[in-house]
C-alpha cells in the first residue's frame, strides 16, 4: 500500500484513502471546440491515453481524506511517486521533476 503525499493535507497518507483518477492534464474541450471537432478528435480526447512506461502524470482523489483531487508524477515501472502537486497547476517540467527526484533521494539518505 503506497504512502501518498497529499499536497492539500501536506502529509503522507495511506493509499486506501485515495482513488486513482486517470491521466492528468487532460483538458475537456470547450462547447465551441466540441461542436467543431471531428469524431476522431473527440474519441482521441475520450479514449487515447499515454499509458506511459516510466514517469506518468496522473490524477488522484483524496476521497477518504480532504476530498481534493490533485496531480502526481509516479513512475509506473517502480511505482514510486516522484512528486504530487495541486490541481490546476501546469504540467511539471522535466527540470521540476528532476529536482523533486533529487530532494526525495536526499530525504531517503538522511533518514
Amino acid at each position: 500500500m503506497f504512502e501518498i503525499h497529499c499536497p492539500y493535507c501536506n502529509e503522507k497518507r495511506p493509499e486506501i484513502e485515495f482513488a486513482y483518477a486517470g491521466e492528468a492534464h487532460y483538458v475537456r474541450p470547450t462547447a465551441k471546440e466540441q461542436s467543431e471537432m471531428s469524431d476522431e478528435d473527440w474519441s482521441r480526447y475520450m479514449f487515447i491515453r499515454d499509458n506511459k512506461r516510466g514517469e506518468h502524470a496522473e490524477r488522484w482523489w483524496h476521497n477518504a481524506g480532504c476530498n481534493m483531487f490533485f496531480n502526481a508524477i509516479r513512475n509506473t515501472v517502480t511505482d514510486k511517486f516522484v512528486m504530487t502537486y495541486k490541481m490546476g497547476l501546469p504540467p511539471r517540467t522535466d527540470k521540476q521533476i528532476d529536482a523533486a527526484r533529487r530532494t526525495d533521494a536526499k530525504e531517503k539518505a538522511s533518514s
Partner: protein
Amino acid sequence: MSAFRKTGRGRVDASKVINFTFDGKSYQGVQGDTVASALLANGNHLMGRSFKYHRPRGVLGAGWEEPNALIAVDRGKGRVTPNVRATTQEIYEGLKAESQNRSPNLKFDMGAFNNAFSMFFPAGFYNKTFMWPKSFWDKVYEPFIRNMAGLGPAPDADDPDVYASVYGHCETLIIGAGPAGIAAALAAAKNGERIILVDENAQMGGSLLSTPSIEIDGKPAGKWLETSLKALAKAENVTLMTRTTATGYYHDNFVALAERITHHVPNAEIGKVREALHRIRAGKVILAQGGIERPLVFNGNDRPGVMLASAAQTYLGEYGVAVGNEVAVFTSHDSAYQAAFDVADANTRIAAIIDVRGTIRDDLIMGATERGIKVIKSAAITKTFGKLRVKACEVYEPESGNKTKLNCDAILMSGGWTPSLHLWSHSKGGIKWDADLAAYIPDAPNENAVCIGACNGDFGIAAALSAGHKAGGGRKTYKTNETDFGTGLVLSSLPSYLDSSKQKAFVDFQNDVTEKDIKLAVSEGFKSIEHVKRYTTNGMATDQGKTSNLNALEIASKAVGKPIEKVGLTTFRPPYTPTTFGTFTGYRDNELFDPTRKTPIDPWAEANGAAFEPVGHWRRAWYFPKEGEDMHAAVARECKATRDSLGIFDASTLGKIEVVGPDAAKFMNLMYTNPWSKLPVLGCRYGLMCREDGYIYDDGVVGRMAEDRFHVTTTTGGAPRVYRHMEDYLQTEFPELDVWLTSTTEQWAVIAINGPNARKLIEPFVEGIDLSADSFPHMTLREGKICGVPTRLFRVSFTGELGFEINVPAHYGRMVWETLFEEGQKYDICPYGTETMHVLRAEKGFIIVGQDTDGTVTAHDAGMSWAVSKKKRDFVGKRSLARPDLVAEGRKQLIGLLTEDSKEVLEEGAQIVEDPNQPIPMDMLGHVTSSYWSESLGRSIAMAVVRDGFNRMGETLNIPMPDKVIKAKVVKPVFYDPKGERLNVV
C-alpha cells in the same frame, strides 16, 4: 528420557514431559520441543512422503525451510491444519499429528508404486502423454491425476477459529532476532524511537540458540542472549514479537507480519484470535533473516536420516537431541566441521567426515584429529542404503577409485549457505551474484532498508553482531571464540562413477525434482531458470525452493553452459512462508466483510416481517408477505392496496447531494442533460445524467430549494459514483464555478406516500404547508414541519398515483413513519417494498437505470429525448450523442411488450427475435428488461429494448424459450393511466 535425548543439552525443559500422538501412536516430548525434535528424540526419522513419487522422507532441516516433514495438525472438526512443518510445530499436551500423502500408512504407502515407475515420470511427462484416446482425458487420465494430487487433507468443515488484523507503525522494523537483529535492536533502542523486533520462532536468538559453546565478549552466548533480551524487553520503545513471520514486504516500507497466537497452546479456545495480521508501516526496515544451508545433490540424498549439518547442530544445541548413534558428515563447506564437532562432543560417534575438497583448513583437521574423527578428502557419497532409514553409505574416492561402505544411521550434509533474500526481493531491492559465496547477495535498495548478517553474506556470529549494531546506529564491534565460519566449494554435480540416468539425486525434495530432471529440461530447450522451474516444478513446493533454488540454478547454468547471472534468478513474491487465509481475512468475515447499510425505518420493516433484498451496500425491504403469501401474492396485494387507497414506502436509500452556490444552476446544466436555469425555486424536475460517452448513467428527481441550492437525488446504487462524477468535473474541469457539493443521503429519511388518500393521510400532521392541489401542484416541493419535525416535502410520484415524498431528519424517520402508519389504518395503509415499487413504476413506463438501461442506452434510445436539452451549448455527454453510431438508424430502443397470452409473464432477460425458426446463432433484436404481473391491469406487462423499436409499434415479435415460443406485441411503454389523471385526485 527417550533414547536420543542428551541430558544437560539443549534449551528444552526436560522436567516437563508432554504427550502427543503421531499417526495415532503416542509419543513423549518435553517442553520446548517441536514435533520433529520430539520424534527424533524417540529415534523416529520417517515423517513424510514426497509429492510425486511418495518416497519415504525424514527431516531435512530444523526450521521453516523444511520440505519433507509435513504433517496435519488435528484440533477437531474444521480445525485440521494441513501441510504444517513438523520442524516448526511446537508440541503441546494432547497434540494430534498425522502424516500426509500416504495410504494406508506412512511405512507402507501404495502411492509409492509411482516411485517404482519413476523412470516414466520425468519432468514434464504429463505434456507428453494422456492424450489418446481423447475421451480418456476427461474420464480416466485427469480423474486419476487429480486423485494423486494434493498433499494435506482438504478441509471437512468451516474453520470455527477467528482471526485478527491491525495496523501498526514504527521507526525501525527489525526482521529476524538472531545475533544480527538483536544487536541492531540494542543499538537502535538507545535513540528512543519505536522499534519492532520480530522472529518467526518461539525463541529469539537464531543461531545463538544452537551454539551454546560460543562466547560473546567473554560471556557464554546463552547468557548474552538472556541479558540482551531482558534489556530490550525493559525498553519502552521496543516491541518484541515471537512466533511472528514477516510474510511480505510491500510498497513504501509496508510489511505484513503474521503472528501465530495459539498454534502452540493446548486446547486453544474457539472464539479467541488464532492468528493476527499486523500491517506495519516502518520508517526503516532492517532485514536480518539469516541464511539457509544448502543440501548436497548426490544419489540417495533423500533417504530418511540424511539432513543438513546445521539442522543436526540445532537439534542438539537447542533441543538436546542426537540425530543418530553413528553419523556420517558429507560436506563441501567448512561450517559442517563445527556441526560435526558439536555432535561428537555430545558423545555421538562420527563415522567420518567426507569432504569433496582436497585441501582443508588445518584447524579443522586438527579439531577432527583431537576428536578422533576420520576425514576423507576428495571423496563423495555415491549411494545410501536402508529403506525407511539410512543404514549405510558408499564413499567413493575418484582418485583411487576406491568405494567403501560406511555404516551410519544419519548423514549430515552441507553444500554451503544461501543468504535469505526473500523480503529484500519483495521490496524490489537489487541483488548481485557473489562468486566466492556462490550466492546472490543484496545490491542497491529500493526502499529504506538494509540487509545485515548472513542474509547480507556476512556469515559468522561476530560478523553478524557487529553488522547488526552498525545498522542500529551503533559502532560496537563484537568478539567471539567461534571457529572461523569459513568458505566452501559449490559443485553442481558431485564426483560419481554412476551413470547420471541411474542416479536419484534430489534437488527439490518435496516435488521430487532430481538433477537429471533439470538437465532434461535444459536439453529440451528450457534454458531460463523461469522455464526450468515451471517445467520441472523445482522450487514450487510449499517450501518455495528455500533449499533447492540455488542448487537448481547451479545445475541449470552448467547444463546451459552460461554463467548463473545469465540464467537468472526466480524472483521471490509474498508470502515468505505459507500464510493462513484467515490471517489475510482478519476480522472481515460475514457481517464485517462489508457493511450492511440499513435505513432508519429498517428496524420497523424487520419487526413487521419484511423480506429484504441487497442493493449496493444497502438492504431494502423487498416485500411484506402476510401469512402464507409468496412474493407474487404479496406484491399483487401491495400494488392493489396502493392504487386503491394508500401505500407507504421507505425511499431513504436514494442518494442525495446538496448542490449549493451561486453557480449551482450552471453546474447542474453541465452535469445533467436537462435544462435547470428556468426551474423555479421550490420546483422539481426529473434529471438525467450521462457520462462523456453519452449513455445514461443515472437519474433522479431534483428539487430547487433556492436560487443557489439544489436538492439532488440519485439512484440507490449510483449515489457514490454520481458524487464522484460530480466532484471530479467540479474540481478538475469547472473549478471556476462557485458551487459546492455535500452528500446528504443519510441526513434524510425519505417516506413515500402514494395513493388516492395520500393527501388525506398527511394533512393532519403537516404544519406551515398548504397541501391543496392548486397551491402545491405535482412536481413541486415545500419546506415545513410534519409530526413536529422539519421536512422537505416533495409532491412527486413514481407510481402514477397522487404521491408525496416526505424528507425528515434521519433520526426522526422511524417516528414519522410509525405515526403515519398508525393514522393510515383508517385508509388500510399498506407498506410496500422495492418489488411493488418496480411494478407500479413499470405500469407507468418509468425506467429503472441499470435494469431498463444498461450502459449502452442513450436518452433517445430510452424514448426520453424530452429530457435532453436542445438549447444548452454544453453538458457532459452532449458531444458523444452526436457520434455516428449513436444517431444511427436501428438502434435498440425501449418499448413496451404485451404477450398474446395475457397470463404469460415473460422472463426478464429473455431475448427477442423476428423469426423463431431461424437457425442458431439467431439474430436477436433485443431483450426483455422488465416484466411483471400487473394486478391493476389483470395481465402481464413488459418493457424491452428492441432494435428499431420505435418503428415497430404494433408488430408482433417472438421470444423463443427452451420449451416454447412466446408471442408479444410491441406497444408504447405506458400501460396504466396514460393520461396521468390519477395524479390529480383532490
